[in-house]
């Protein structure tokens, strides 16, 4: 009860199963910077399972104005321990540990410890150290989020080889199947007499039945036409409007209002078809240790194959409707039962697949099967790109004017950023700019060579401010990074793919798919 109460406001958003995933996650933070501490704060509060901070610095006076989780009295103490202690105070249910080691070489020296985490957050990481870390995470398919800041500017890069989701929350409309009613719905609709004389009964016919009825009437007039155009739907809408007997018939009003939207063709979205075509699904039996997601996806694909209409399982819920309670309950039960039937079939496919794969039957929990069926239409996979491949890419922008925040992106790719020993000279800047231009395609680099100032001033800025963390920017970036980490951990909502530049001067951001 205590936990439900404490987490009430977030349970409303990501539900108990999202919370369970969060509580099972372990996050590793490399460098206890201000931005890193803010990221962890935002994960400790909602109750992430545990965190590790890898940092070997002592709290410096410069940390005081930047990092909220160090105090004046703690200057000189080990930053990893100080920040861990303060963060643990925020939530007693969260495990936290401090590892006093060089965060930059941790991936090489302690790969095993690092890989025991579900997600790695690296902050203000010099390029030279980032590449081996990113390669290790990529190889072991562990999510890595990089968060760098320099003065008023921030840069976020998410590296995830494959991120799978059922609950994207992208398609919110109800799955009603009006264009292809299942037999029980058909029978139910036929049991109503839309021309009945009883005005009370007439005013209580649920809008779903009205839509089915008028669709049928329209089809009788147009026997050859299969797909409905927008104009056709409008025509059906006006047929419904003409059949209204008195202005109090809210059921007719509701049907007319929803006609265009709900009379859409039920089909498997292309996005889902693409996932079905992926080798992890098609060649499921060839993979060594298939993830439950792919077993479920394959079961859904097999379900669609078998379905007479080639459709995904029915979601099973209906919107509130103007009708009497009894009819509504009947209608609700109708959809629920059909959805249950579909779940049954999918469950059957899952257990067959598990037998074929020689996996124990509890590999895919029943709740997950239900979740997959309910959200089948939203099924989605994000395939990421590695930071290594990004480095080797030739970058181009299709926009004639090179955008401001694209230049900031480039300025965060310099090799000397965060190594910060030498003072920034114009030679360093020139050298870095030359390197960056080498990454660009001809037309873009020509444009920038003609006007070098915008890029060189930005490079100068990031190099100059690589060691300055402004608290407010760190808080903003820390909020964004934690939000993306929560999306990745809970497998709910679609995370950033894959780069975000945060501009604290004009409070703009820009995302890039790199």
């Amino acid at each position, binding site marked *: *009860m205590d936990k439900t*109460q*404490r987490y*009430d*406001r*977030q349970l*409303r*958003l990501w539900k108990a199963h999202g919370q369970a995933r969060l509580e099972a996650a372990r996050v590793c933070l490399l460098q206890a910077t201000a931005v890193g501490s*803010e990221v962890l*704060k*935002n994960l400790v*509060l*909602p109750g992430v399972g545990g965190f590790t901070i890898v940092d070997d610095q002592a709290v410096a006076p410069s940390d*005081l*104005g930047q990092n909220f989780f160090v105090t004046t009295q703690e200057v000189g103490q080990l930053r990893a321990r100080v920040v861990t202690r303060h963060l643990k105070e*925020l939530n*007693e249910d969260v495990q936290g540990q401090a590892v006093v080691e060089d965060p930059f070489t941790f991936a090489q020296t302690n790969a095993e410890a690092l890989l025991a985490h579900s997600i790695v957050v690296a902050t203000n990481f010099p390029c030279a150290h980032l590449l081996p870390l990113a390669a290790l995470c990529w190889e072991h398919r562990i999510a890595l989020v990089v968060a760098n800041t320099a*003065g008023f500017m921030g840069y976020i890069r998410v590296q995830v080889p494959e991120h799978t989701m059922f609950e994207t*929350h*992208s398609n919110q409309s109800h799955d009603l199947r009006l264009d292809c009613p299942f037999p029980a719905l058909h029978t139910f609709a036929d049991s109503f007499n839309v021309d009945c004389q009883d005005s*009370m009964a007439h005013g209580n016919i649920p809008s779903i039945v009205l839509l089915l009825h008028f669709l049928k009437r329209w089809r009788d007039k147009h026997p050859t036409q299969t797909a409905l155009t927008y104009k056709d739907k409008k025509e059906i809408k006006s047929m419904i409007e003409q059949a209204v007997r008195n202005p109090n018939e809210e059921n007719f009003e509701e049907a007319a209002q929803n006609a265009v939207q709900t009379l859409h063709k039920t089909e498997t979205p292309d996005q889902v078809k693409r996932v079905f075509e992926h080798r992890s699904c098609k060649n499921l039996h060839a993979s060594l240790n298939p993830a439950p997601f792919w077993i479920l996806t394959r079961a859904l694909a097999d379900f669609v194959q078998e379905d007479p209409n080639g459709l995904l399982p029915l979601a099973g819920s209906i919107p*509130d409707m103007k009708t*009497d*309670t*009894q009819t509504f*309950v009947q209608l609700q039960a109708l959809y629920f039962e059909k959805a249950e039937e579909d779940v049954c079939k999918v469950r059957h496919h899952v257990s067959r697949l598990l037998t074929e794969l020689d996996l124990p039957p509890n590999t895919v929990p029943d709740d997950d099967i239900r979740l997959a069926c309910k959200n089948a239409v939203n099924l989605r996979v994000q395939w990421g790109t590695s930071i290594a491949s990004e480095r080797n*890419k*030739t970058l*181009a*922008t299709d*926009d004639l004017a090179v*955008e401001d925040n*694209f230049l900031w992106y480039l300025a965060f790719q310099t090799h000397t950023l965060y190594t910060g020993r030498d003072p920034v000279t114009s030679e360093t800047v020139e050298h870095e700019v030359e390197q960056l231009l080498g990454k660009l*395609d001809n037309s873009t680099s020509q444009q920038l060579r003609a006007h070098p100032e915008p890029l060189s001033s930005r490079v100068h*800025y990031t190099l100059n401010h690589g060691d*300055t963390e*402004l*608290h*407010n*920017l760190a*808080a*903003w*970036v*820390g*909020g*964004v990074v*934690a*939000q993306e980490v*929560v999306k990745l951990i809970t497998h709910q*909502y*679609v995370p*950033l*793919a894959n780069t975000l530049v945060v501009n604290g001067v*004009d*409070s*703009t951001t820009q*995302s*890039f*798919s*790199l």
Partner: protein
Amino acid sequence: MPLTLATTAELVPDTTRVLVVGAGGIGCELLKNLVLSGFLRIDVVDLDTIDLSNLNRQFLFQKQHISQPKATVAAQAVQRFNPQASVVAHHANIKDPQYDAAWFAQFDLVLNALDNLDARRHVNRMCLLTNRPLVESGTAGYLGQVTVIRQGFTECFDCQPKPTPKTFPICTIRSTPSAPIHCIVWAKDYLFTQMFAAKAEDDDDDAIAAPSASDDPAEIQLLHLEASALKQLQTLASPETLGPTVFTKVFTEDIARLLTMDEMWANKPKPEPLDLATLYRQALDQDYVDHAVLEPPAFHTPAWSDQQVWSVAQNLHAFLYSTSILARRCHALTQANTEADLAPTVGLTFDKDDDDCLTFVTAAANLRAQVFHIDAKSRFDVKAMAGNIIPAIATTNAIVAGLMVIQATHLATGHPDRCQTTYLAKGTNRPRLFYNEQLATPSTQCVVCQRRYVTMHTNLECATLRDLLTALKPYRHALGLGDDLVIEEGGRLLYDPDFDDNLDRPLANVGICQHTFVTVAAEEPDPWHWPLSLYIIGSTDQPMPVAIKEPEQLAMPLHVKQPLESQKRKAEDQLSPDTTKIARADQPLVPTNGISSAMAGTADDSGPHTLTKPLENLMTQPADSHPVEIPSDNDDDTVTILD
């Protein structure tokens, strides 16, 4: 772009005074960011105390702080991080009279971190009156928004109409519920209020609409009788007997009475009264209610979990148990007040985070649902429906507060032109997280910011409405108010030419008090002139009955009367839809000029007077208020990078 700026601390003047309204989710983040960004003089106002459900995001609070004032704890927590900063906490309601115009005027800017419409509207109005820039914020789950309101330059909080909370006809709630929400509203707004709330004279409630034409007056009359009978029971029963007594009254007798009204059930399934004895036996069989009915249910077991829909027997147990607890709490409160020699009429208010309240409402709503053949709901769902819960998470608050401080920094460093509106959207098909928009110009239809705000000093004990009218007389034509005026306060009509009963009563006697806004409008609505809002400052040593501060403010429009009239005619002839604003003939129109000459000593003498559009044109959106960037449905914010 100030690329050379190293820290914001160097930018924000030490003297900048900011007011933070709200120390909740956004407020905590905001206070932390402000003290670490060089804002040294901060006042924070919050009336709330800390609750367990705050701790998942309001990180300045910990378990040991539960039930302490939010403002105080938050101020102490952030103060430690900057000894130079002075953070002053006010554990109070921002609408309290001590936070008057003069108080608001001390601040250079105001930041709203509020969760309710009413307080936001109030702060918006106070900022318009005192001409203080306001950084406004809001979140809901993964969604967030930050914007800046500047009197005369931008949209105010009320320029965009806000959705009104849904209300239900009284008969739907009290006699003919057909959905779970009807039962929940009944349990919370009717039953709970009648049984445990302080006995106020009027039982009006927000969620139940006043009787309308569709409600049967005879039925309403009966419902009133029903309510007073319930009240009677409440005073007679002890905490132990209250549950069974009320149960029989509302789930057996009242339902039996409803059943006698045949015509009501001609087309609906009839409700079925519950019988306490039968249910009780049933509960005993299921082991839910042991020999001690009032023992707490085993809430920690799966059968009683928040997500579980309780059985009828469970609901009975939960109803009897929570009723006895709440009744005892009421008694304790009354006793404490009697001992302290205070008014004994105290009670409880429904709080969604109060376990006893929520258990009561869940059980009562579900029992009623049983009677009317409606689906029962879990405690978790009832909480969302009864409490209007908006999901709130740490990350969104962190992001929104960060954006607010950027806007605050623009304002504090003299760059209001850099302010903008930012939306935080959830990524669905598009990878985009943020949208930016230019600040919109004020809506010419806004009844809040398009009117003229004037401060009025008066002696509330001796000045009358007649004095007020007399004081306004010299200016009313200039203001375009005409001969016949209407005076209102908070939606109450105080005077119009056909209603002069109050004319010679002192202002205090007609309900005008310190720190309120009195509206003076023309009796004939005039599309060219907005009503006048008089902000009342009352004092007993005020020599004059009514004094209008800086009367030249009111006199000013005299100079524009002629051009105004001619412009009006011209506009009426042409009715050009592009003409959104009409300039004074002798002065070029400043596109972002103000309309309400600001009061409270910060008046803009040359204050240009923008006229509102004729009503016919009001439907057309002014061309200059279009956002520069409209969120579109493609991926245009992502620069495509080619291999």
